[in-house]
C-alpha cells in the first residue's frame, strides 16, 4: 500500500505518520522533555522571581557643611514615597562615610562670596542616588525660590509591565529561536545514518518529510510558549493580554522559527554546520533584537534596529498586547515578522528540496 503516494491526501497522510513517529520518539526522550518543557519553565520562574521582585528606591544620603538643614529639608520634601534616609555628618567626613558604605551619596555644602555651592559624592554602583542627590542639592542652593510649581502624582492606571510580563515573552521567543536547529540537525543525522535515504526511497514524498519536520517544530514551539505563558500567568500573575492576539503573535513567532530552521537545514551540509549556523543566527538575532535588556536601556540606534528585527518586533508586539493595545497597533510589527518568515522560509524551502532530492 502506498502510504504517502501522490496527491495532497497522500502527502498529508505521510506527514501525519512521520509526525506521530517523531512525537512518540520525543516524549520517550528525557533530555528532549528537559530542554523543551522543563528548561523554559525553570528559566521563566528564575527570571520572574529575580526580576519581578517589588523594590523601593532605598538609599541613604549624607549631608554636611553650611546650611545642611536646607539640603535635608529639600530631600525630605522631594522624596515622596521613596525610602530615603538622611544623615547629618561632620564636615570633611563625607568621603569616609561613603567609603565605609554608611551612605550611598553625600552632599557637602560650602559657602563662598557668590553664595552657597556643593560637592556631591557617591559610591560606585550608586550613580542614580548620586544624580538624585545632585538634583536636590541644586534646589537647596537655588535663589530666589518664588514661583515654585506643584507636582501632582497620578497613577498610570494599569501598572507598568512587571518582570514576568517583560521577560516572559522575551524568554519564550529566545527559547524558540534557540531551538530552531534541532530539526536541521535531525535531518542531517538521518541523512548520515542512512534513514533519510531509505525514507525517501519509500512512497513518502520529500514534501511529506518536510511538512512532518515543520509540524513537529510547530508543536514543540507552541508547547514551549504555552509552558511559559501558563507558568508566568499562574505563578506570577502576568497579564499577557487578549488571548487571541497572544495566540496570533505566538503562531507567527513559531512559524518564523520554522522558516529559520528550514533555511538552516537547507544551507548546512552536516549536523556540525547546522549547529554552527544555528548558534550564529540565534545569537545574532538575540544580540540585535534587544533580548534580556529593556529597550529603554539600549542606545538609540540599537533600539531602532531591535524594533526591525523579527524577534524584536515580536517582543514589542507582546508588550503592546499586554498593555491592552489593539491588533491595529501591532499590525506593523506583525508585518515585519511575516515578511522575514516568508523571505527566509521560501529561500530555505527551495534550497532544502534540492538537498533532499540530491
Amino acid at each position, binding site marked *: 500500500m502506498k502510504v504517502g503516494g501522490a496527491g495532497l491526501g497522500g502527502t498529508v497522510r505521510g506527514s501525519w505518520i512521520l509526525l506521530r513517529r517523531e512525537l512518540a520518539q520525543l516524549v520517550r526522550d528525557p533530555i528532549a522533555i528537559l530542554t523543551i518543557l522543563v528548561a523554559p519553565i525553570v528559566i521563566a520562574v528564575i527570571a520572574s522571581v529575580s*526580576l519581578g521582585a517589588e523594590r523601593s528606591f532605598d538609599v541613604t544620603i549624607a549631608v554636611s557643611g553650611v546650611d545642611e538643614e536646607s539640603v535635608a529639608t*529639600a530631600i525630605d520634601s522631594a522624596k515622596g514615597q521613596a525610602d530615603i534616609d538622611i544623615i547629618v555628618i561632620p564636615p570633611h567626613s563625607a568621603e569616609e562615610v561613603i567609603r565605609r558604605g554608611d551612605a550611598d551619596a553625600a552632599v557637602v555644602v560650602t559657602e563662598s562670596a557668590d553664595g552657597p555651592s556643593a560637592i556631591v559624592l557617591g559610591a560606585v*554602583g550608586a*550613580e542614580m542616588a548620586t544624580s538624585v542627590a545632585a538634583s536636590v542639592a541644586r534646589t537647596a542652593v537655588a535663589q530666589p525660590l518664588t514661583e515654585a510649581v506643584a507636582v501632582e502624582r*497620578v497613577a498610570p492606571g494599569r501598572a507598568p509591565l512587571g518582570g514576568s510580563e517583560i521577560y516572559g515573552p522575551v524568554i519564550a521567543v529566545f527559547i524558540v529561536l534557540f531551538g530552531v536547529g534541532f530539526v536541521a540537525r535531525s535531518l542531517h543525522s538521518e541523512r548520515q545514518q542512512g534513514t533519510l535515504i531509505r525514507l525517501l526511497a519509500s512512497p513518502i514524498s520529500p514534501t511529506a518529510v518536510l511538512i512532518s519536520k515543520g509540524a513537529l517544530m510547530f508543536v514543540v514551539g507552541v508547547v514551549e510558549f504555552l509552558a511559559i505563558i501558563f507558568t508566568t500567568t499562574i505563578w506570577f500573575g502576568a497579564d499577557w493580554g487578549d488571548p487571541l492576539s497572544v495566540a496570533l503573535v505566538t503562531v507567527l513567532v513559531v512559524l518564523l522559527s520554522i522558516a529559520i530552521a528550514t533555511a538552516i537545514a537547507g544551507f548546512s551540509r552536516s549536523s556540525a554546520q547546522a549547529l554552527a549556523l544555528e548558534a550564529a543566527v540565534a545569537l545574532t538575532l538575540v544580540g540585535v533584537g534587544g533580548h534580556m535588556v*529593556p529597550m529603554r536601556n539600549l*542606545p538609540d540606534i540599537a533600539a531602532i534596529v531591535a524594533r526591525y528585527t523579527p524577534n524584536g518586533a515580536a517582543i514589542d508586539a507582546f508588550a503592546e498586547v499586554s498593555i491592552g493595545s489593539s491588533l491595529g497597533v501591532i499590525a506593523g510589527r506583525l508585518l515585519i515578522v511575516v515578511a522575514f518568515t516568508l523571505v527566509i522560509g521560501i529561500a530555505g524551502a527551495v534550497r532544502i528540496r534540492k538537498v533532499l532530492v540530491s
Partner: protein
Amino acid sequence: MRWLLQTLAVARVFLRRYLFHPVNLAATLVLPVMIALIFGSADERAATNLPLGAVVEGASPSGEQFIDTLEAEPGVTVRMFEDRAQLLRAVRRTDVVGGVVVPEGFDAAPGGAQVLLIADDGDPLHAAAGIVTTAVAGRFGADPATYMDRIEIAPALASEGGRSLGFPRAAAGMLVYWVFANAMFAAALITEDRRRGMLSRLASTPTPAMSIVVGEVGGRFFVALGQSIVVAFVSSLVLGTAWGAVVPLAAVLITASAVAAGLSVLLGVSLRGPTTQSATAALAAAGVLGLLGGCFWATDFVPPVMRTVAKLTPHAWVIDALDELVAQNAGVVDIAPQLAVLGLLAVALVVLAAARLRHALLAPVAAT
C-alpha cells in the same frame, strides 16, 4: 617523565578537538566580550540614566522651559510625546520611567502652576523620577546662575559592600557565564568518547588511567583559565574594566577554572545519550546555573530567597569575588571566604570527577 608526556598528550588532544572548532573558538573568545558590550552598555544606562516622558499641552513657553530644566538634570533624558495617551502607553510599556504632563494654562498660573507626574510609586526608578521632578518644580523660576554650575559631582568612590555596575559588572558576569558554559559544553566530548568506545580503547593502551584523568581535567583547566585571562584582558582594553590587583584576580581565575574543569569532567562522565543531546542538556544546565548565579543581573536586586539560592552555584561566589575586586579594590584577604569556598569546591569536584572517570576507564577492562 613518560607519565607527564602521556598526560600532556591527552590534554593536547582535548585542546585540539575543542579549540579548532570555529563555534567553540567564538564562544570562548569573542562572544563573552560582545555580549558584555551589549549588557554593559544597557546596564550602564540603567544605572545612570533616568528616561522620562513628557507632554506639553498647548503652546507654553514656560512649560517648554520646565521640560528643558528637567532635561538638564544629571542623568535625565526626556522623550517628548504628542499627547497624554501616548505618554501613558510609554509609561505602561516601561519605555520611560515616569511621565510629566505640563497642562494647558501652565503659563497663566504664576505662582500656582502645577504639573502632573504619571508614575508608579512602587517602582524605584519611578520614585527617583518623582524626586527629580519635585526638585526641579521646587526651584522653577530661580536664577539658573545660582544653582546650575554650583553643584559639582565628584568621581564615584569605591566603598565597603559596594557593587559594580555597567561594563565591569557585565564583563564579570559574562566571563563567569562563558567559562562555565564552555566547560559544561565540553563535557559532551567525554560523552562522545564513551559512546564511540574511545575511552575503552584508551584504557587498553599502556597510558595510565591517571594520565588520562589529569590530561582531561588539565586540558579543560587551561581552556577555562586561558579564556578568563583573555576576556579579562580584552574587557579591560575595550570596556575599561579595572579588575584590581593582579594576585587576587589570578587567585579567583585559577580557582574558578579549576571548579569549571572539575564540573566539566564530572558532567561528561555522568551524562548519557547521544552527543548532541548531552551538549544541549549541558548548555541548558549552564543557562540555568548562570541565571541563578547572577551572571545576567546583579543578585543585590533579587529577593533574599534567590540570593540564598545563588550561593548554591559556584558562579555567585566567583562573581562576588570579582565584584569586590572591581568595586572595592579588594585584596586576597578580603576575598578569602570566596576563595576558600571555590577552592574546596574545586578539590571536591576534581576528586569526584577523577574517580568517576577512572572508574569509567577501568570498568570495561575489568569486565573483560
